């Protein structure tokens, strides 16, 4: 495991924390998209191309879109 994987994996944790603590739900969704993409890259690094393809299509694609629709139909701000 090289230094690149270390950095990517640490980044995953930071992004996850950012998703949880962002007040703006749309911003959280965008961060979640980046999280899924980095997860897909890490999966490629771990020699799992099938899973990476699925994670990119589902996590970064469909799931993010569904979150955006839901936020559009409900509310964008997380209340205090």
């Amino acid at each position, binding site marked *: 495991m090289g230094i690149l994987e270390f950095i990517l994996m640490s980044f995953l944790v930071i992004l996850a924390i950012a998703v949880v603590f962002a007040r703006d739900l749309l911003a959280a969704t965008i961060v979640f998209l980046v999280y899924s993409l980095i997860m897909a890259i890490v999966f490629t690094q771990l020699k799992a191309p099938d899973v990476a393809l699925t994670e990119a299509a589902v996590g970064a694609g*469909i799931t993010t879109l*569904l979150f955006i*629709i839901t936020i559009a139909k409900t509310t964008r701000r997380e209340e205090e």
Partner: protein
Amino acid sequence: MTTVVIQTIGRILVPFIQLFGLYVIIHGPVSPGGGFQGGVIVGASMILLALSYDLSSAEARASHKVRIAMDSTGALLFAGIGLVALLAGGFFLEYGIIPLPMAPAEVRGIFILLVGVAIGIHIMALAASLFLHLAEEHEI
């Protein structure tokens, strides 16, 4: 202006995305991907259509009834393949036993592809369905 650009790009992209999705389904046995991934990609093309035009044009391409029919057909195809193996005297989903004029491994290969296609049909309808249901009555 932006709408025109988005619509044009969408119209150009959608066939290519669908073609790529079908490629991913068909090449599941030899390269990364398979029925599920390809199905999601084709489903995503319908979503792109809905996003760049509006929901009704996506509905026009694949209506509610068509989607439900594809959905059930895919699942029934998979379960049906399993039951055919059972009728041929093997275990459920034991493709190798199905009497085709080939070596058992090749028969299995064919049915693995067929199962991928069944999953693809199922998922492409469902991915579009899930999106359209959530987005209904609301233009985005």
